[in-house]
């Protein structure tokens, strides 16, 4: 096809050979990206997986070597691991569902017409530009009864018996990072879903209106089916991303109190960063990766069944 185009005008000029076009030229453009990704991500990934089967502890440098599945056996009987797994599940589910529904609501609102739309759009997307560590610190401060208003408001509403810091309460602490994550994540869903909404042909709605369809019917029969592929892909990517997302929890609670906010990714980080036990940290990471792959596979199968393109 492209080879044919080459034979058109200007044929006598040095015609790029077939091999150059198909084997060399694309790789000239790609090589920096390939080299960096291979060296900085793929090689360490392979090393990381191999660490899971070794004893690599910088604090005990003489006990290195292959240990087979010992790290995984330790993992199986590690109570903290199972607790972190449960916490990961609630953290991810709570964050993703609130982010998604609030983000969808915002995208639908922004897809209508109103005064000051440009300004409103810039303002509501702003949390996304806030560096994560700063969102975490800001929300941690808001939940602090000394300087933050939230505990006082919650107490006034009767949700808390007295204004105390929920980040220090094992039963409620997880809501702190979840709130921060929802605040931070709504704009992502709003932006991507808004982009998808704007690509729905307007004629469909006009036709539906002529046929006397209600707003709700338009939403379920036109909007949702058009959004479905986008929803499937963004929810999948965000779930994986949130399950891996350690920054907010690490800054806000450090996994505490009493490990009540310890999720797998913060557990990986603290094991590597504080205990310098790279072997065990890698074993947890491999377990998390396996779980996420299973999740992604299930979602892709569901998507193929539900969404027919």
């Amino acid at each position, binding site marked *: 096809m492209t080879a044919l185009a080459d034979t058109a*005008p200007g044929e006598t000029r040095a015609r790029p050979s077939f091999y150059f*076009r*198909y*084997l060399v030229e*694309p790789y000239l*453009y*790609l090589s920096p*990206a390939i080299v*960096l*990704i291979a060296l*900085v*991500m*793929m090689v*360490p*990934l392979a*090393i990381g997986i191999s*660490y899971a089967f070794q004893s*690599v502890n910088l604090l005990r440098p003489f006990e290195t070597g292959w240990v087979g599945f010992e790290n995984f056996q330790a993992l199986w009987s590690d109570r903290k691991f199972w607790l972190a797994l449960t916490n990961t599940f609630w953290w991810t589910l709570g964050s993703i569902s609130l982010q998604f529904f609030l983000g969808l609501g915002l995208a639908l*609102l922004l*897809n*209508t017409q*109103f005064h000051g739309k440009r300004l409103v759009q*810039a*303002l509501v997307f*702003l*949390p996304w*530009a*806030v560096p*994560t*560590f*700063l969102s975490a*610190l*800001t*929300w941690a*401060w*808001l939940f602090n009864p000394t300087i933050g*208003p939230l505990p*006082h408001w919650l107490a006034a509403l009767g949700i808390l018996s007295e204004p105390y810091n929920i980040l220090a309460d094992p039963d409620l602490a997880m809501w702190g990072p979840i709130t921060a994550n929802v605040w931070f994540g709504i704009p992502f869903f709003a932006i*991507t879903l*808004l*982009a998808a909404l*704007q690509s729905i042909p*307007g004629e469909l709605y006009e036709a539906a*209106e002529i046929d006397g369809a209600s707003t709700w019917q338009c939403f379920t029969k036109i909007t949702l089916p058009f959004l479905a592929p*986008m929803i499937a892909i963004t929810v999948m990517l965000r779930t*994986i991303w949130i*399950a891996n997302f350690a920054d907010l929890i*690490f*800054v806000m609670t450090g996994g505490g109190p009493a490990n009540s906010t310890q999720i797998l*990714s913060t557990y*990986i*980080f603290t094991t*590597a960063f504080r205990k310098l036990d*790279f072997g065990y*940290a890698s074993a947890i*990471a491999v377990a*998390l*990766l396996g779980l*996420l*792959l299973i999740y992604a596979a299930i979602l892709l199968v569901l998507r193929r069944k539900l969404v027919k393109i």
Partner: protein
Amino acid sequence: MRNFGKQSTVAVAGKYLALGFYVAFALFPLYWLAKIAVTPDKLIFTDGTALVPSSFTFENFRTVLLHTDFLAYFRNSLVVSLGTAAITTCIAAAAGYAFSRFDFRGKRLIIAAMLITQMFPLLMIIAPIYKIVAAVGLLNSLTSLIIVYTAFNIPFATFLMQSFFDGIPKDLEEAGMIDGCTRFQALRKIILPLTLPGLAATLGFIFTAAWSELLFALMLINSNDTMTFPVGLLTFVSKFSVDWGQMMAAGVLALVPSCLFFIFIQRYLVQGLTSGAVKG
């Protein structure tokens, strides 16, 4: 962009109420950050949860700028983020162009590899990277952070750039090549000027990502001279954990670069996504 014509006043009021809720939810934490930052130290506790401080001061900002290592952290972060953004954008533009314009052997394999890098927990490679960086003697250097961040951001930036290139008709550069340009000249003179919004969006994206990265910076940097902003602020918080006004002032200052970038790119963002990235 559609209007259902006759909307009841209740619906309109509800819509503005909902929008008001979203705006308030988005802005309130930032407002509070700024409020505490300008409240004089001795009023922080007495003012408590009052929405507006009874007097203002910029003393906290002055202290943070002049009497702490804040400016050094800020400079380090700026170097790392700008370096990462510039290098990543160049590399990703080249790679995205290759994906958009060529069919070649191994294309699917490379795309699959890039997708995989987006799937696995980055924390998984934190230990190997630490050991490698330590082995080549780059611990505590900003160069190591730039290299690591660049690699992390290339896959996403490449897909983003590919979608921008996909939005530009092939005929344009083919016309240029028929007129005697080489492909590279056509890319530089015809295509790149058209992708400027795309390049800007990618640049901003990567800048903010690099600006906020915390965990790898925490792992790879522990000397005070080369700390980036997130690491510096976190040590600041644990060291002087009672000086609320100063911490918040530092926080407000940390917001400035990423918000500036964001205001600059946000209109390209939806436009860019609409024009290609997620269609289909």
